[in-house]
C-alpha cells in the first residue's frame, strides 16, 4: 500500500523535472508534500508527517508569491523592453550603467541560448541521466545489509516516560534528550528571519504598502473563512498544549498559529504589521527558551523534580517554541506578502 503511494511520489518528481512552468511546479510541489506527509504517517511517524504537511503548505505559499512577482517583472519587462523603473530601485541611477548591464545581458542571453539550443533533448539528458543511474547503481551495490540496530530505540521507548514523562516519545526526545539540537533549530529560524529581512531587495523593515488580497468580493468565502480562522487558531493551541500526549507539539502548533495569520490576511486585507515589535518578541521568546532550557535541563534540575513538573516543563517549552515558530513564520509570510511582492 505504501509502495503505491511512493510510486506516485516518484512520478510527481519526474513531472517536476520535465516541467518548465512555475505555477505547475508549485502545484506539483504541494501535492508532493501531501503525498510525502501521508507516507510518513503510514511509516509510523505522525509528528514528522504533521510538520511536513504544514511546511509543504508554507513552502508552496512562499514559492507562489515569488513566482507571481517573477512573472510580473518579466511581463513588465517584455512590454517595456527596458528595465522597469516603477519599483523605486535604489541601484538604477546611472543611465549608462543600466545600458551597460542591459547590453551585457543581451550578450549573455544570446551566448547561453545558443548553447542551450545547439543540443537536442537526448544530448542534454543522456549523459546526466547515465551518470545519475551509475551513481544509483553504485549506491545500491554498496548498500549495507543487515537489520537496523535497535539499541537507542529500545532505550528511548522503555525509558522516556520515566525520565521525561508524557506519552509522546518524539516530543520527549526533542524537548528533553535532544533539547540542545532544538535550540539550534530555533536559532536557524531566528537567523532565517534576520537573513530574509537583510537580504531582500528592499531594505526597509516595516511592512507597509503591500498589495491587498482581493478576497473581499467573495462574500461567501469570506464569511466561511472567518469561521475557519478561529478553528485554525484553536487547533494550533490544541496541538501545542497536547504536544506531549498526542502527535503535534511546538513546531506544528506554531505553524498553525502562523497559518491563522495567513487566513487573517486573506479576510481582512491586513498587510501592515508592527513587524519590529514581532521581531523583538521573537527574539525575546528565543532568549527565554534558551534560558528556560538552561535552567531546567542543562543544569540537571529536571532529574530532581517530581514527575508532575516534567509535564509542566514540556507544556511551557512547547508553548515557547510554538510562539517562537509562529512569530518566525509570521514575519516571513508578511515579509513575502508585503515586500517581496511589492
Amino acid at each position, binding site marked *: 500500500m505504501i509502495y503505491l503511494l511512493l510510486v506516485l511520489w516518484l512520478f510527481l518528481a519526474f513531472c517536476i523535472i520535465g516541467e518548465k512552468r512555475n505555477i505547475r511546479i508549485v502545484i506539483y510541489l504541494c501535492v508532493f508534500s501531501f503525498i510525502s506527509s501521508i507516507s510518513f504517517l503510514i511509516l509510523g511517524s505522525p509528528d514528522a508527517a504533521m510538520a511536513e504537511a504544514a511546511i509543504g503548505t508554507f513552502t508552496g505559499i512562499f514559492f507562489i508569491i515569488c513566482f507571481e512577482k517573477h512573472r510580473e517583472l518579466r511581463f513588465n519587462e517584455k512590454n517595456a523592453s527596458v528595465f522597469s523603473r516603477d519599483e523605486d530601485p535604489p541601484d538604477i541611477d546611472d543611465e549608462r550603467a543600466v545600458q551597460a548591464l542591459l547590453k551585457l545581458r543581451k550578450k549573455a542571453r544570446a551566448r547561453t541560448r545558443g548553447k542551450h539550443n545547439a543540443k537536442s533533448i537526448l544530448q542534454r539528458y543522456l549523459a546526466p541521466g547515465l551518470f545519475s543511474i551509475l551513481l544509483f547503481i553504485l549506491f545500491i551495490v554498496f548498500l549495507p545489509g543487515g537489520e537496523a540496530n535497535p539499541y537507542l530505540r529500545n532505550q528511548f521507548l522503555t525509558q522516556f516516560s520515566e525520565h521525561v514523562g508524557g506519552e509522546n516519545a518524539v516530543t520527549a526526545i526533542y524537548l528533553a534528550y535532544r533539547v*540542545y539540537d532544538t535550540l539550534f533549530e530555533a536559532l536557524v529560524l531566528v537567523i532565517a528571519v534576520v537573513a530574509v529581512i537583510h537580504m531582500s531587495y528592499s531594505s526597509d523593515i516595516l511592512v507597509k504598502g503591500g498589495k491587498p488580497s482581493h478576497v473581499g468580493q467573495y462574500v461567501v468565502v469570506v464569511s466561511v473563512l472567518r469561521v475557519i480562522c478561529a478553528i485554525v487558531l484553536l487547533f494550533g493551541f490544541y496541538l501545542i498544549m497536547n504536544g506531549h500526549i498526542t502527535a503535534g507539539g511546538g513546531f506544528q502548533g506554531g505553524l498553525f498559529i502562523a497559518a491563522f495569520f495567513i487566513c487573517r490576511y486573506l479576510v481582512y486585507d491586513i498587510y501592515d504589521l508592527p513587524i519590529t515589535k514581532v521581531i523583538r518578541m521573537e527574539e525575546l521568546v528565543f532568549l527565554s527558551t534558551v534560558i528556560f532550557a*538552561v535552567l531546567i535541563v542543562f543544569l540537571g534540575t529536571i532529574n530532581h523534580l517530581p514527575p508532575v513538573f516534567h509535564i509542566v516543563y514540556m507544556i511551557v517549552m512547547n508553548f515557547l517554541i510554538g510562539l517562537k515558530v509562529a512569530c518566525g513564520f509570521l514575519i516571513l509570510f508578511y515579509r513575502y506578502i508585503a515586500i517581496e511582492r511589492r
Partner: protein
Amino acid sequence: MLIYLVIAPILFAVLLYLFPTSKISKSIVIVAQALLVAAAFVLFYQSRTNEISLNIGDYGGFLGITLAVDQLSAIFLILTVVIFFALTIYNIGENNSKFFWFLLFLLEGTLIGLFLTRDIFNIFVLAEVTTVLGAIFLMYHRIRRSMYDGLVYLMVNVIVMQFYLFGIGFLYMLTGVLDMDQSALVIATTLDNSQLTLPFALIKTAIAAKCSLLPLMTFLPKVHSIPDAPSSVGTILSCLQVKAGIYLFLRFRHIFQGIDASSFFLILGIITAVFGIILALGQTNIKSILAYSTIAQVGLIVIGLSLEGTYSYIGSLYHVFSHAIAKATLFLSAGIIMRVYDTLEMSKIKGVLKEIPVVGFVTILAILSMTGAPLFSGNISKYFMMSEANFIIYPIIILINLGTITVFIKYATILFGKMPAVTEEEIDEAKATGVLQEDRDNIERTGFFAKAEAIILRIDIFKEIAVVLLAILCLLGGIFGTELIGLLFHYDVVIRFADIAEKAIIFVCSWGAGYFIYRFAVKKNASLKFIGHLDLNFRTICVSIGGFFALTLLVVGVVLS
C-alpha cells in the same frame, strides 16, 4: 562550563540585536570577547590533565548529547577564540552596525559548538547554521557578485549536507547510536568494512567539499575572495570553516578506523595542493591568491595527516594552527590594503612597504611564516610533517613548498615599487564602467577618491594592532615551537639543530628557485592566467560532487578491500 561557552556568545549576540540603539558600545564587545578567550584558555588548561565531558541532562546511556573537550577539540577551540579576538580588535574601530556583531558572535558560538560536540547529528545542525551565517555574512553589503556566489555557496553546501545526512542515516542504522565514541566502539567491535563503505563515502564527500579537498572545488576560494564582502568573513571562512572540515576529517577517521584510506587521501592531498598552487599562480587579485593558497595548504595538511606517525600528525595539526594565524594576518592586511588602494588588482597595487609600512612589514612576516622560514611557526610545522615522510613524499612536500614560495613571491610584488599616480581619466573611467552607483556607496570607499585628492589616508589604528598581534603570534609560534607543541599536544618533541640548518639551506635554495620560476615562467604567462580564471558553473559543481562520491566509493569498496 562547556555548554556556556557555546550558549553565551549566542545569547550575547541575540541580546545585542535586541539592544535599542543601532551602534554598540565597543567596550562591551571587547570585554565579552576577552571573557570568552579567558574561558577557553581555562577550559584548555583543565582539559590538559583529563578529558572533560558533559552529558546534557545527565541521561546517560548515550541518550542525550555529549559535549567534550579533548586535545583535538582544545586546539581548534583555542584557534577559534584567538582568531575571533583578533577580528574583534580589527573591526572595533569601524562603524559597524549591530548586525555585524550579531553575525560575528553567532558564528563564534556555532563554530565553538561544532568543535565541542560529540553528536553526529548535532554536527549536521551546527554545520547548517554556520553555512547560513557565512552566506549572510558574505552578502553583508548586498552587492552584485556576492549574491551569485553566496547563492552557489549556500546551495552547494545544502546539497553536500544532504549527502552527510544520508551517511548519518546509515551510520545510525548500523550502530544504533549517534555518539561518536560509542559508534566508533560499535564499529570496531561488530561491523565489517563492506558494510561501512557507503556511509564512509557519503560522509567523506561532504567533508571533502567542506574543506575543499575536491580538486575541482573552485567555488570555495571564489567565495572566500569575494571583493565586496568584508575581509573578516574571508578570514573566518578561510581560516576556520575550512579547518572545521579538517577537524571533521579527523573525527570521522577515528570513527571509521577499520577503513584505511590514507593512501587515497594522500594522493588526493597531493592533487589538491598542486591544483591549488597552479590556480593561485593564475590569480590577479590579492584576496584570490590568498584563498587559493589556502587550498594548497589544505592539501599539504591532508598529506601530513595521511602519513603514519606521531610527528607528522602533530606537524599537520600545528600547521593548521600556524597556517590559520598567518592566513588571518594576510587576509586582514589585504583588507587594509584594499582600503588604501581601493582595489584588489595586483597590477594596481605597488609599494605597500613605503605607503603603509606597518602593514607591509606584517605581510613580510606572515609570508615568511607561510613559506616555512626558520624561526617562524610554519617552519616548525613543516619540519615535523617532513620528518617522517618517506623518500617519495619528502621531495613532493619540498616541491609543494617551492610552489607556495613562488605564489608568495608573486604576492610579495605588491610590497615594492612605486605607488601609481591616479590621473583624472582613470577616475572618470572608474565612475563610468558598469559599476552601479549602489556598489560604490555601499562599501565605504575612502581610498580611491582620497588618493585622487592627494590626501594621505589615516588608517584605523585598531586594524594595525590586530594584524601586528597576529604577526607576533606567528613569530612566537616559531621561536617557542617545541614549548608550544608540548603545551598543545602534551607531547615532547625534539628539534635537531642539524636538521634546522639543512631546512634553512633548502629554504634559501627554494626562495632562489622560486624567484627564478616566478621571473621566467609565471610572470607573464597567459595560460596560467586562463587556468586561474576557470570557473565551474553550478551544474558542474554538482557533477563533481557526484563524481567524487563515486570515486570514493569505488576506491574504498573495490581497490582498497
